[in-house]
């Protein structure tokens, strides 16, 4: 028994007596490592000084820089623009077209005005169906995305109302009555191609990178026509005024139809609503709080810059700790 205890003590002291000596530095190896480190550092600094992307990144003052390649921006902007103009139906119920003109006749007194006409077409039941093609997108310094969106207007038909008025002038006014007629007609939007030009302005609020559409010219000249049956209705209506007292003869129904066809061919300017394009946030943003060490830290964020350079959108923000973290919750215990 004494021998066993003695053996245990000897073994224990052998174990306990061998406390670890800390690792020792080899001065020659450290010198080699340091020399290598300085040489590599020098080469890296020289190479990065020649790299335009690194130079661009270092030009920003903020503590967080977000850089997005132009290819991705263009793809995103193209998709957004296409989404807004593709398979969209524009309600034209409050759109109207109008025109007016004078009718002159040669008389022994020379050419005199015998009357004037006016026409108004209300597209009460017509819609415009748009389909967007592949947009052309390009970045433009300092902060714009230029967009050129081909838009196909598809053929649609719907109800419209035609108002036609005749106002006799001069001598004709003595013998002829004025007239106004209103007819329900069936109109159609002709298939046609347009290009909508605009841009998206990029902005950096600090937390959000946004793209706001700028489309100053949202007008589309919509070419219209009437169905054959409706032209027949219009012609019939004009001819019905071709009596001695209403002086339709002076006005001439064929001439009235010509006016109306010219009006349809000229088209109707339809302005797309401003709201068709909305501001969109890009998919990278900064947060005003983060979790560190299981605690929430509030941050103050200030947008510093935004620019397009080297086919890249660069934005930066200064981030500083605003509020101290909440008290630490009970830390988890290590597993045994």
């Amino acid at each position, binding site marked *: 028994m004494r*021998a*066993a205890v*003695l*053996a*245990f003590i*000897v073994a224990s*002291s*052998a*174990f306990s007596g061998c*406390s*670890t*000596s*800390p*690792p020792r*530095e080899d001065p020659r190896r450290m010198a080699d*490592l340091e020399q290598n*480190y300085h040489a*590599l550092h020098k*080469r*890296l600094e020289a*190479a*990065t000084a020649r*790299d335009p*992307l*690194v130079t661009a*990144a270092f030009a*920003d003052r903020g503590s*967080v*820089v*977000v*850089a*997005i390649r132009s*290819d*991705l921006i263009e*793809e*995103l902007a193209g998709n*957004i623009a296409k*989404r807004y103009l593709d398979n969209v139906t524009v309600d034209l119920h*409050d759109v109207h077209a109008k025109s007016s003109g004078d009718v002159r006749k040669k008389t022994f007194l020379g050419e005199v005005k015998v009357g004037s006409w006016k026409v108004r077409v209300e597209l009460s039941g017509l819609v415009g169906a748009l389909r967007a093609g592949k947009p052309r997108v390009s970045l433009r310094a300092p902060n714009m995305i230029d967009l050129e969106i081909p838009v196909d207007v598809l053929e649609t038909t719907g109800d419209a109302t035609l108002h036609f008025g005749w106002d006799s002038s001069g001598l004709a006014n003595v013998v002829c009555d004025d007239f106004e007629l209103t007819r329900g007609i069936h109109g159609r939007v002709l298939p046609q191609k347009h290009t909508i030009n605009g841009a998206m302005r990029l902005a950096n609020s600090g937390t959000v990178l946004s793209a706001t559409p700028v489309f100053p010219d949202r007008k589309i000249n919509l070419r219209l026509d009437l169905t054959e049956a409706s032209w027949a209705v219009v012609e019939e209506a004009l001819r019905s005024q071709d009596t001695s007292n209403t002086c339709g003869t002076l006005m001439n129904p064929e001439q009235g139809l010509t006016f109306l066809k010219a009006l349809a061919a000229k088209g109707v300017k339809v302005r797309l*609503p401003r*709201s*068709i394009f*909305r*501001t*969109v946030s890009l*998919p*990278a*943003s*900064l*947060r005003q709080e*983060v*979790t*560190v060490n299981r605690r929430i830290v509030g*941050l103050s*964020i200030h947008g510093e810059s935004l620019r397009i350079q080297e086919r890249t959108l660069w934005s930066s923000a200064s981030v500083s*700790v605003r509020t101290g*973290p909440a008290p*630490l919750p009970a*830390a988890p215990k*290590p597993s045994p």
Partner: protein
Amino acid sequence: MAGSSPPRPDANPEAFLIRALRVATGVLLLLAVLVAGFVQYRRDGRAGARQTAREALLSLQNAALFQLVADAEKGTLLDFKGILIVVDQSLVQDLLTAVTPMEAEIGSGFRVNIDSVEASFGDGVALVQMTGTASVGDALVGSEVTVFGSIDAVEIDRASGILRCNVSILAVDAQNAEALGRNDPVGRLTEALAEGGLSLLLGPLEIPVRLEDALAIPAVDSKRLQITAETLPLTVNARRIKVFGGKLWAFVDAVLPAPGAGPVVRP
């Protein structure tokens, strides 16, 4: 002659027992000395092969710098395709300082207190150097320690989209290793930190950048047209990091679905 011959057990059983015990004691002593010598030999061998924290860090920095130089000289240092997030070392230091002091039982009986943190992103390694004290159990005396950690990866939290750093342990330096016990205490402390202790001490480290996995296109509701809101799915993945110039550069791939690949989500 008869006196020199070994006693037979049946001749004098008591004398035989005493002699057998002596032999056993001798064998046990010899075994104990051999074991002790072997342990000492193994320890010395291991200590000789182990690097100091400074040497380990410098070796790692050199390896990272070598790769960075190769990339930079080829012109592919910032060869990102989608999004690049650049985080200055000062921000990481401010965030960590805001939650300092840090304290945790990190496992293997060690308790670590950190009172200062320094982030340094200059040399290929996103070094997070934490200084404080380590102690064993309830001991009042411990050792001043420097824990060298590094941000070796970032990931995008799938739920929140927040960029999250993964911090790994590089090495530990202890001023007074003896105060942490015997039997390679610094090695055991390093092991405890590497095996979950650092995460107990430091917890998650988020960078205040959020990367969305979708692009929200707001609805349009005007008198002439109504367009429903749409969500354009976007696949974002943190691919890799590079560290130089006092900054951490996180490369994030962002890919839109191929045309016709799938329907656009309409909420």
